[in-house]
């Protein structure tokens, strides 16, 4: 497949890196030095120029491309680039935008702006945020098969009732599969007798209710209900959408924003959120407003440094769970090492989402876990796939790599994978695969 990517920022580069292995990737970048450097860093063709110009797009041979990804930091550039691409040929175009406005316009009529798909990074990040805080103690949570299946990664704390149990004891749920355990740097594919230890990270795949119940099992008393006190600091777009999505779930979050005009604007748009206008790093204020008693704090300010400060502060005054937005990809690990429960990077989220779309057409959905140690795929089986007609047991002994069938959906209903489950054409399978075996697994489909 030929893929043209406009913009070699963090998002574009990350997508290019993901795709370069299997596809012909052309990257267009306005910054000459960066374009030059990319040639050496990745196995891609890089062109220096304006991605919205017809001439440059012709040079990139957009007319023969299968996929066109506009991933610059500028919304309008991305939309114009997609529009231009559609005049040259008919690649599948994906535009990245920050503003939800353009997404809403596009939702009215798919194909508007010449974009076949729009990925809104702020909204995506907020959705991610809400999923993570919706399932306390989840490090990661992604929906598959249109929401029929959830994949979640949990950290098992010292005091968790699950710590020290065997997998067979912990997994009381029919429709839940223990796909993997990360212990330190190591990936374990568990069987029933594997003992779960404290500080393990467990990956489970199953029905959303089962995942939710499992979350309650490992950390009792921590599920989200309308009494959950959530404080969002920073009225950035991400902060705003997080509050809005929480409101949609019937919660009444509190939002702290220092800028008066912005605070007023937010208060007008968020009828069920208590908006406060103050500096969120003022400890006196936080104590007066009992922020220390909050269940969850979301740091969503526009600066990583301030997010770090408020997150550390919140942890110190005793907030149970702190989730932060981290703009700089390199800080993600740092944040989590300091003790912030989850750090979400908008660029990672966006790149991941775009990569999902651009993966070979059989791969519909993808989540990368633990610094790319493992991946979770969603695949639809064609009639001519070699897996069709086989039971999972047969496949298990046939294939050499580390993988687990997490869930199967057939005609939009959930099937718990068992050894004797026979795969049929049209089934969607959600598979947990060790990254080194991902390509091997794909080729056997």
């Amino acid at each position, binding site marked *: 497949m030929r893929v043209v990517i406009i913009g070699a920022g963090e998002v574009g580069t990350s997508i290019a890196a993901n795709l370069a292995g299997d596809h012909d990737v052309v990257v267009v970048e306005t910054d000459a030095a960066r374009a030059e450097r990319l040639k050496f860093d990745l196995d891609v063709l890089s062109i220096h120029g304006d991605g919205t110009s017809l001439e440059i797009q012709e040079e990139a041979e957009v007319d023969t491309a299968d996929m066109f990804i506009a991933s610059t930091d500028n919304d309008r550039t991305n939309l114009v680039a997609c529009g231009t691409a559609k005049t040259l040929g008919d690649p599948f175009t994906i535009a990245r935008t920050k503003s939800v406005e353009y997404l809403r316009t596009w939702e009215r009529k798919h194909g508007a702006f010449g974009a076949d798909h729009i990925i809104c990074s702020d909204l995506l990040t907020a959705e991610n945020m809400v999923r993570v805080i919706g399932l306390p103690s989840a490090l990661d949570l992604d929906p598959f098969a249109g929401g029929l299946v959830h994949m979640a990664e949990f950290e098992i704390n010292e005091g968790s009732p699950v710590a020290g149990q065997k997998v067979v004891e912990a997994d009381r749920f029919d429709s839940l599969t223990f796909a993997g355990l990360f212990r330190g740097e190591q990936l374990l594919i568990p069987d029933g007798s594997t003992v779960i230890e404290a500080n393990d990270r467990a990956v489970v795949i199953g029905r959303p209710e089962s995942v939710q119940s499992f979350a309650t099992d490992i950390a009792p008393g921590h599920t989200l209900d309308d009494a959950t006190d959530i404080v969002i600091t920073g009225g950035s777009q991400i902060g705003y959408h997080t509050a809005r999505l929480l409101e949609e779930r019937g919660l009444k979050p509190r939002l702290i924003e220092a800028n008066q005009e912005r605070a007023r604007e937010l*208060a007008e748009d968020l009828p069920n959120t208590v908006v406060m206008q103050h500096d969120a790093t003022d400890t006196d204020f936080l104590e007066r407003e009992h922020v220390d008693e909050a269940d969850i704090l979301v740091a969503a300010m526009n600066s990583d440094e301030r997010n770090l400060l408020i997150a550390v502060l919140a942890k110190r005054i005793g907030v149970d769970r702190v989730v932060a937005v981290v703009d700089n990809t390199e800080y993600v690990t740092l944040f989590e090492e300091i003790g912030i429960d989850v750090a979400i990077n908008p660029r990672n989220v966006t790149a991941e989402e775009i990569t999902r779309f651009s993966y070979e057409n059989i791969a519909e959905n993808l989540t990368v876990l633990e610094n790319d140690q493992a991946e979770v795929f969603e695949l639809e089986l064609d009639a001519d796939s070699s897996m069709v007609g086989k039971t999972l047991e047969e496949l298990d002994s046939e294939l050499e790599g580390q993988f687990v069938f997490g869930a199967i959906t057939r005609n939009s209903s959930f099937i718990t994978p068992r050894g004797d489950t026979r795969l049929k054409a049209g089934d969607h399978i959600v598979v947990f695969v060790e990254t080194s075996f991902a390509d091997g697994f794909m080729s056997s489909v």
Partner: protein
Amino acid sequence: MFTAPQIRVDWRASFDLTGQILFYLSVPLAFPLVLAVYYGEPLLPFLGAIAVTLGLGWGLDFVGDPEANLGPREAFLAVAVIWFLVAAVGAIPFVLAGTGTTASPVNAMFEAMSGLTTTGGTVFREFSVYSNSLLMWRQLIQWLGGLGILILVTAVFSSVGVGGAQLMETETQTQDVSKLTPKISETARLIWGLYVAITGLAVAVYYALGLSGLAPNMDLYNAIAHAFTSVATAGFSPEPQSAAAFAPIAQWALIPFMLVGSTNFILLYLFIQGEPMRLLQNEEFHFYLGTVGFFGTIVTAILVINPDIAFSSEATIRHALFNVTSIVTTTGYASTDYTLWSAAGQHMIFVCMFFGGMVGSTTCSIKSLRWLVAFKSLRRSLYTSIHPEAIRPVRISGNSVDEQTIRDIYGYLLLSIILVFMLTIFVVVDAARFQSLQVSEFDAMGAAASTFLNIGPAFGAAGPFGTYDIFPTSTKVVMIVLMWIGRIEIIPVLVLFTKSFWTS
């Protein structure tokens, strides 16, 4: 033409518009003229008024400049002048007829201003001396004033298109004249069409009651007369006993039309155009109906425990609901003489005077929206005193109200209450000059609120079946001015008395 460079108001634009309106005022004057011919009554009052209004209109048109630009200041000036002059022309037939108390110019002006501003307080003592045509003129002025003259003007003259929104906003002091259509004159036409249609329906309902024998004295004349003043929430009646002259069923029939007249006409229009939820989910609508329901219940209870009142149970509910509706909607009819009620009942009626219906309707007084915003903003103050950093917009029907509007509303409430208070004192002090005149403070308060808030009947001698003629001329003059100020919501008149309006 003289030029006065220091004057920054293009008054010629205002005068031009005023002239045109006075010119066209001869059209409604033709209606009582036709009636006078039909009943064989004197024609002079109306012919004289028509001559004066044509002459005055022509004169103002002459000094006015049709090319001049009608901006916000010119709109203020035009609104104030138009309401005053239309009332003045409305007074002419009373003076020319020369019958009863209104033969005196001040009384005639009081009656006309009370009519045009839809107040409905009368200086008549004896109704029988008036001709049918003159009594109908009194009803017609109220109907014209009900929805607002300038909305009518905007509907009729497409030429005021640009300034029209300005005029309507000035007249009603509402921040947003919601346009139903891109052209303001088209919107005004739709609203007036709706007003005419509701009035027509009221005529049909009342007359049907008369024809069926359920309310025998509700003939076509009375049906039209009461349709005019119920939908306009105005309150004049050709009957000295007001609504009490009619059968209970007719009184019940008046209630819904008073209520509809006090409902926002834009929302009413949307209601019949298939967007009923816009009205039904409107918080101001809930507040307004809640006010009527709340006071209706309380007054019913007061009447039940009042030993001097011996109504049947139907009559108790009817009188409580009718009079509360009449006062809250600022109509001013009475189904019974509430001045005979206990002090508790009368005080409840007094409180009702300060509410009013919805903005964008024919109602007067302070209006539900202002109270609703004020109450919500006060409740917010309680919250922010505990959480000083919280930003809480005041929301009405889900839309937030901007802070400037809230301040304006507080200002308006304060100004209204101060003016009522000042007028009260004035009425008492002015009356003290006369040995024979006994005006209690409560009666004075009632008369002050009732005229300034454009309701109509007050208490004591100026009660629903009484007359304002008891007050000295000086009091009546002040009341004329306050009815005028109150109807166009204070600001357009008061700004005319500021230096900066004219010069800066």
